[in-house]
């Protein structure tokens, strides 16, 4: 018997601070839903079996079913502030999380934390400053700045998970490999943002930066320069909700947890 998905009105509200000014805080487990005050979207009730008609509400690029004014824009005031870690082009998944650590299962909370401690450990030794200090398990860099084709290689979801578990909030790259981008959105672990120019050549590891999601802007306080980012678009609310499942619950596509 396949799983039945039915509409359940979603009345809980979650609050959290809209702007994140502190660098890695409590562990970001996949269960946490990091959203500001939320009002339920109106969606068509579904039959008991999942049908594609519900697609509108669950697309990775959703169309809002209410007017913008009735839903607080989740990303309009969202900011990230912290130190940035700069990497080059074609940072593949083996560098983000080497294969030997793939025995760790991301859906297991303890192993999720362990994965985070190995994030970017595969970078060559030419990267003198490491993403995570040898005796640490979290990173002090909340923003990763990359070049072209970030996340290329494997489909392993462990890659965006490791970055998120380590404490990274966003990656700003010139471009992404598709599976990494998709996994980042699906898990809600990191925001995969795209820059208009090669910021990786103008920023240095340790620069203090602020990302204003609503403004699609990155400010490097250390150099004083500002950069336009491509809008995160409809992927934003999905990541903000905590990934596709959380977003699907939020929009009433699948029932919220009963346990």
């Amino acid at each position: 018997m396949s799983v039945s998905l039915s509409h359940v009105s979603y009345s809980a509200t979650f609050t959290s601070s809209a702007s994140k000014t502190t660098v890695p805080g409590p562990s970001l487990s996949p269960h946490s839903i990091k959203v500001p005050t939320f009002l339920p979207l109106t969606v068509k009730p579904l039959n008991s079996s999942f049908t594609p008609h519900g697609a509108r509400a669950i697309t990775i690029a959703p169309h809002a079913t209410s007017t913008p004014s009735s839903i607080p824009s989740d990303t309009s005031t969202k900011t990230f502030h912290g130190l940035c870690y700069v990497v080059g082009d074609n940072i593949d998944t083996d560098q983000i999380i080497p294969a030997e650590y793939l025995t760790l299962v991301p859906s297991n909370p303890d192993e999720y934390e362990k994965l985070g401690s190995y994030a970017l450990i595969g970078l060559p030794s030419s990267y003198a400053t490491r993403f995570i200090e040898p005796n640490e398990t979290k990173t002090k860099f909340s923003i990763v700045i990359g070049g072209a084709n970030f996340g290329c290689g494997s489909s392993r979801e462990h890659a965006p998970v490791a970055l998120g578990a380590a404490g990274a909030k966003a990656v700003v790259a010139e471009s992404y490999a598709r599976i990494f981008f998709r996994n980042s959105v699906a898990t809600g672990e990191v925001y995969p943002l795209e820059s208009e120019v090669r910021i990786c050549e103008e920023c240095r590891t340790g620069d203090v930066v602020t990302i204003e999601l609503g403004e699609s802007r990155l400010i490097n306080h250390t150099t004083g320069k500002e950069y336009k980012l491509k809008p995160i678009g409809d992927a934003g609310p999905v990541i903000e909700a905590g990934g596709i499942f959380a977003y699907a619950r939020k929009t009433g596509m699948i029932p919220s947890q009963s346990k």
Partner: protein
Amino acid sequence: MASSLVSSPTSSFLKKIAFHKCKKQVSKKIVSVMAPQQSERKTYTTGSVKTGMTMTEKILARASEKQQLNPGDNVWVNVDILMTHDVCGPGSIGIFKKEFGEKAKVWDREKIVIIPDHYIFTSDERANRNVDILRDFCGEQNIKYFYDIKDLSNFKANPDYKGVCHVALAQEGHCRPGEVLLGTDSHTCTAGAFGQFATGIGNTDAGFVLGTGKVLLKVPPTLRFVMDGEMPHYLLAKDLILQIIGEISVAGATYKSMEFVGTTVESLNMEERMTLCNMVVEAGGKNGVVPADSTTFKYLEDKTSVPYEPVYSDAQASFLSEYRFDISKLEPLVAKPHSPDNRALARECKDVKIDRVYIGSCTGGKTEDFLAAAKVFLASGKKVKVPTFLVPATQKVWMDIYTLPVPGSGGKTCSQIFEEAGCDTPASPSCGACLGGPKDTYARMNEPKVCVSTTNRNFPGRMGHKEGQIYLASPYTAAASALTGYVTDPREFLC
């Protein structure tokens, strides 16, 4: 059926002609470039006007029960097969249970294929535990296809165990033209060789599919690669795909479908077509397709009784761009460290001293790959100069190595030829050291070495050690290199 392939390009096709002059220096110049075609579609304003569709568009249209699809459309697609293995399976299962409930049942117990293959022959406890997790899940869900392994000391003692998932999927008849196959592995695109839509997804997407049997996909535009001409006897499909990746770069096909057509492609057997599609992801590609033809149908005859319906690109289909290759002008290639698009002629790397050779993986560890390597060793008659590791992809490949006679050898098997050449004994079938793995993995690169490998990626640390240097190559080139101890063009041995 193969004749329905587009033979004459329309004026809307883009031609990029790249060829190599054998005797002179390699010319990488692109002769002509055009802008993408997509603005053409705006002229069709009513939904009732049907535009020609590419193979990929057609497969996704059928799977999403839509009449017409265009690149860029986001559609919910019915999944025919979902595959997972020991590395991503436990995570996908975890998400499935967390999101759908501990007591939830999978959408279809016959459409899920679970294949332990990555970290099998190791004493790593977590790796072993991950196979146990798969077993528990398969038991509770009554999954029909679970290729289990319990006795790690002797792979042959496990009748269900297969080995490398992508090769097993093909050998067990799970790949069928026109279908949608998803897997929690980037090289799932291998199955596109069968004329189906096959791509890799992450744990979260897989968890979703486990519960619903559907996935949200964006329809990719298609790049067409036309390869015509008789395949020179010293080239293999690996050389073709290395040529292409070198041409368009590791991001050249990002979010796109790669369609392979032409007389050369038609002359390839199924395993060679699998090699071609296998490395689509190394160009950033979403999926690769080869139109199904009599070669495909013959291969499938004794493997599946599930009915299938192949699809083919319409003559009026729009392709983002078209690349044409004159195969007769190509030469054996390698991808130098540390990127699959770092293309070079094998003969121009003849001064690169190597420490070892690795023949294995979904890319280069199939029966045809070992037959190819054996051909070179046979032609030489000499012994290898460096440790040469052989890792058959599946139990069946292992059997073939020990039973199939190698043409022109007077009845010798691959295994005999390998032994006479001084190669290592063929190992237990699995993904092996292609991706490093736990420290005790056979043939893992634990020190900085130079390796010629028939695998698919050579990013830093791929096979274990960050300073390892991996040259990706065809089985011919790998065998030739083993014989000299340097990167070697196989024409040194194949006359």
